[in-house]
């Protein structure tokens, strides 16, 4: 492993990582937009690919491809209360599991890459939807606190027609 990752191995253990992922998941489930937004770094990428999961978020269509500025716009729209696709909001609960610290050198030096699976149930008047997929996170220690620099969600249904995805996945 590279030196920065080794540094992380000594400074961040799996338990801390899991606690961070669970907290991020809870903020998303409970539509705690302020707390969720505060997790992100300024160079954030929140990405849900469509079609080929290894596609290019710049040249190809994605379900979501938000930089930090667009994350802010998305959340501002939700906070208006008139984002009708999420007003009334979906009831959500997700399980995040199979958490692994991965050997990946993407992102900034020292970023920690973490993989996990999730299953999520969404309930709204339209009916219930089950969402599932694989999430890759890049976490960064900033002033002793873990922050989120990158979150890529590859849905198991990424190449199928998806229902509206207006909550935070």
């Amino acid at each position, binding site marked *: 492993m590279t030196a920065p990752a080794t540094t992380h191995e000594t400074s961040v253990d799996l338990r801390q990582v899991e606690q961070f992922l669970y907290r991020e998941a809870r903020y998303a489930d409970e539509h705690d937009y302020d707390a969720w937004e505060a997790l992100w770094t300024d160079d954030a990428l929140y990405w*849900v690919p*469509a*079609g*080929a999961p290894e*596609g290019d978020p*710049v*040249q*190809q*269509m*994605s*379900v*979501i*491809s*938000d930089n930090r500025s*667009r994350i802010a*716009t*998305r959340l*501002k*729209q939700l906070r*208006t*209360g*008139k*984002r*009708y*696709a*999420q007003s009334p909001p979906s009831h959500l609960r997700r399980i995040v599991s199979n958490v692994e610290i991965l050997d990946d050198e993407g992102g900034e030096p020292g970023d920690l890459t973490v993989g996990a699976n999730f299953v999520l149930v969404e309930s709204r008047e*339209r*009916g219930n939807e089950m969402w599932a997929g694989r999430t890759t996170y890049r976490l960064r220690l900033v002033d002793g606190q873990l922050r989120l620099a990158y979150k890529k969600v590859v849905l198991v249904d990424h*190449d*199928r*027609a*998806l*229902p*509206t*995805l*207006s909550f935070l996945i």
Partner: protein
Amino acid sequence: MTATLPETAHEQTDKPDRYARLIQPTRVHGSLYTDPEIFAEELERIWYRTWVYVGHVSEVPEPGDYVRKNIGPQDVVMTRDRDGEVHLLLNRCAHRGNLVCDAPSGNSNSFRCPYHGWTYRNNGDLLGYPYNKGYGGKGKLALGLGRVPRVASHQGFVFGSFAPGGPTLAEHLGAAAGELDRLARLSPEGEVELTAGWLKHRTRANWKLLAENETDGYHPQFVHGSIFSVTGSPIGALYSDNSTAVTRDLGGGHSENDLRPEFRHFAEPMRWFGTTEDRVPQYVARMRELHGPAAEEILIEGSPHVMIFPNLFIAEIQLFVIQPLSVGECVQHSTAVQFKGAPELNRRMVSQCVGSVGPAGMLLADDTEMYERNQRGVALREPEWLDIRRGVERERTDDNGFRIGTATDETGMRGFWSHYRSLMEADK
């Protein structure tokens, strides 16, 4: 009038005036969106008869290229053969009806059915079948893949018709062809490309709620007020009560929101794309080099906002294809328009489009929420009708003989229903 109506549309199935009763000049009946029998008739009389948009030639640029497409629930493979001709083949083996193509796209000169190994050339011809003695030898069977019998294109947009005869594509498109021309002329090389990949949005609503909404200039301020307000978008003003934009019935069920009067008023190149020319200097320079003084009009007027009956919608930089699956379900396929020779603009169009359309789009997720609520609403018993009278009293005929209304009038919907009715009432 309500008292004289039958309880459900089913009871009038065999009555020749059924559609005249359900589709009136300023209102349409709720059962048109909910009755499975009407949906079955639509498949036969619209989707499997008239010209339907299927794909774009840029999706199969090389000989051997293929891509899975659809006409309503029909699974269609668009191929390009070794001579460069584009075919629309049905994904069904002539032997036992199995699917012969399972990949979403690729390059192959033949398709091999996995079930018994029959193979087909990419023009649909049967190439061979294993253990051929069981059929009396090679080349004994006059079979092939099913084909969409008529295939034609305009500006690279490929349409198919299951009817062996009838109006030509040019007759079907009519004035809408000019809107595709207006889109293509924004490319420095005169060509649109649909190469950015597709989002597929499952929608629990009847396809007509989508088609009607595409040029409904009444809804944006309300449905999209949340995103307009947080981004300070000028789009809302284009569809306000004071807008000089017009809604035009282009005939043939096609309609547009013609925003050019607003853009001409501001006379700012690239305003139609929500930007300024200094943000896309290479593109603007190339267009001026190519068109000379005529470039100003092109760069000011921008891209069309047009619904081409029954399933192709172009909203400036976004392109949508409506695929009906059942009376209450459809899929919206969406992508970013790309212009050949305009990489600088193309990247921005993908970025803007990803933010706006698809399942998580800051515009389309809300439209889709409306479609799905609307589908539940129209199933309720009263007041039975949907009102489409907005602007009927102030509608007028433009210099070219088209009916036009203001930016927020339901002129496009009335044109849609008039054409729909003529197709549904046509002799079988």
